[in-house]
């Protein structure tokens, strides 16, 4: 039994930490895990993705197109960019709030994200959307987007962990004063 997870978005959204939490939870459950992410020239504002694989007989951290059981899309255009990796009938959790490319002002881009969300609605069978910006405002912190996304992803019943198990890993990772906030974010609906 293998689970392939793809997390994508823009640098600074907390994607790497999300990936680490899932991996640490897998380790705690004695499930073998591999992951790979973009590092290098991608600084703030660049496209970031993380491939994550759980299960036995893993060979490489990356997987080919049409192999992801779930895509956790932190940004609409980045989710569209990585959509070819989703399995037929796979799930996607999507933050509908767009992030303008840092060069948008210079290039006169009119990107709004709406056309991306529309495209994903047409092409993804199991799509769960959330306005991450509004959700963060409701929870009172711009820094919990990754926990909101992770909580939603866990509830799709594709990743073999419960919210409680993820929460236990989170508690061991974040500073004590942020535990309550992150617990709320994991359970945001």
């Amino acid at each position, binding site marked *: 039994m293998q689970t392939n997870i793809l997390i994508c978005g*823009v640098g600074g959204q907390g994607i790497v930490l999300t990936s*680490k939490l899932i*991996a*640490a939870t*897998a*380790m705690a459950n004695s499930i*073998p*895990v*591999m*992951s*790979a*992410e973009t*590092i*290098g*020239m*991608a*600084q*703030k*504002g*660049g*496209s970031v993705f993380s491939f994550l694989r759980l299960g036995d*007989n*893993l*060979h*490489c*951290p*990356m*997987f*080919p*197109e*049409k192999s992801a059981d779930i895509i956790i899309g932190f940004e609409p*255009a980045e989710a*569209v*960019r990585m*959509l*070819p*990796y*989703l399995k037929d009938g796979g799930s996607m959790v999507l933050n509908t709030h767009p992030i*303008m*490319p*840092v*060069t*948008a*002002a*210079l290039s*006169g*881009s009119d*990107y709004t994200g709406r*056309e*991306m969300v529309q*495209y994903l609605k*047409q*092409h993804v069978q199991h799509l769960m959307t959330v306005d991450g910006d509004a959700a963060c405002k409701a929870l009172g912190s*711009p820094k919990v987007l990754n926990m909101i996304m992770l909580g939603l992803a866990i509830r799709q019943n594709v990743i073999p962990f419960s919210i409680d198990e993820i929460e236990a890993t989170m508690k061991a990772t974040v500073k004590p004063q942020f535990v309550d906030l992150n617990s709320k974010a994991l359970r945001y609906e």
Partner: protein
Amino acid sequence: MHQEFLMGNAAIARGAIAAGLNLVCGYPGTPSTEVLETAAKVNDGNLYVEWSVNEKAALELGAGAAYCGARSMVTMKQVGLNVASDPLMSLAYIGVKGGMVILVADDPGPISSQTEQDTRSFAAYSKLPCFDPSSVQEAYDMIGDAFAYSERYHTPVLFRPTTRVCHGYASVTVKDEDEFQHNQPEGFVKDSSKWVIFPRLSYQAHISIEARNVELQHEFSQYPHNVLTPEKETGCKKGIVSHGISETYVQEALAGKDAPRLLKIATPFPFPEELAVEFLEGLDEVLCIEELDPVIERELTYLCGKHHLHVNIRGKLTHDVKNAGENTCASVAENIADFLDWERPAQASLDPPPALPVRPPVLCAGCPHRASFYAVKQAMKGKKAVFCGDIGCYTLGNAMPLDMVDTCLCMGAGVNITQGIGKIEPDTTCFAFVGDSTFFASAITGAVNAVYNQAEMTLVILDNSTTAMTGHQPHPGTGRTMMGQVVEKVSIEAVLKGVGVKTVETVNPLHLEEAIETVKRVAAEPGVKAIIFKSPCAVLIKPEQPAVIDPEKCTQCKRCIKQLGCPGIVLQDGKVTIEQSLCTGCGLCTQVCPFHAISTGGAN
């Protein structure tokens, strides 16, 4: 033994420490940097760790330690090996006493490098044994083997993971502390017949090296990480050979299928000849799936000739596998399908998506390099000038609208290239831009060359007090070492004055008017002169209050956007807006706005 979730580079550092590492040094470079950083982080005080000034210095330091019987490791990226190649080639003849591993991370793609060179080829050229791990676990396990072979054969060895192994993460089995080896160096034992290179010694050493490498060919045929897997379906006359991360793509593509005979090569040099011949015997056709150079493919072609084997060797040389760029799970699955006459795996066939926004790498909001480039650009407006760049974040100064990097070649090249241009085009005002870390690594000799050979040029040092591009490592100008000491900073100004640069002016590039005036004044002077633009990396300082736009004064002329290209200035509903989450309050745009419509919170 226990399990941990580790990055490949962390696994290498941890494996080396478990093998009794005494000293590690290197120069930062993607994708190798985290090896040394991990070693520093887990250092219990028994390990000496340093970022050396460049790869040549590091390799020589590592050699000295190994002469004493220490186990030493030197880390660098593949182009760093070019810098270190002078000591490397000679050290191959001299040899070592303690185990010495030269860790060189290759970068197929290339993802963040100038070249797609292959350290396996460098191994054959330098005649040094080479280890090529294919996974994070193998990287952990094989680094210990590398030390053992190095010590047994008294030779430095190369260890060359590629980006996907370096930066991949996996749950790996690692040793507990009570399983660690410990190495107590004996110390340097004087013996000039051993440690002083002379032609006679090199001749003798060459004979021994060739004999040793033949021995290692036999030895490596038994090495457990070189793996021959028999075909699942008897009678299949095809075989596939691979290495490194590509080998895991082969495994992935063949999982659950009738796999042909497989060979994995973890020691590309010396090549495990007997094992390879055993693999080849009885086959009609072999596909070599490699990244970078066709190293295995050439070896197998040679072995077929030597052993009169009628096997058709296919790969990059026969255009069956692409000869540039990274392999992927998908590309390897296609190569294998074509080779075995299988149907190619299905690709996603989606409708064309809406135009996707591009997110190119740009200088950060508040980056002082933007101000430096802009100041020189303004000062040289309308003049014939050339701007030679170098390796670092500031290579991004080539992007529009700054467009201030005319050349970029390799570490420290800009200062010399601009001299060459000046000798041929005396009417061009010649500039070279170099960062502080790159200056110390390899631009000082260029400055000396310019002074001695009467160049006409302005050397611009972009001093942000860190090695920003690779993740903020300290260097001689920062006053911190990897052993946690606070030391006296090496002054760039004193170095330049010391080598004979008469005019060295230091200015904060964020004081735009002063910066422009300085450039105009200094560039007009004859001979070699230098400007140090000093302002810390924006990522490392606490940001000031973001800038504010006065809507009464802003005419929407967009001059700030068009001149600076700062990610902190965006268009929102068609209006120029400061992106609060990105703006660091550097104040450059306030000095560019012709209507004084932008101000920084702190300033008012």
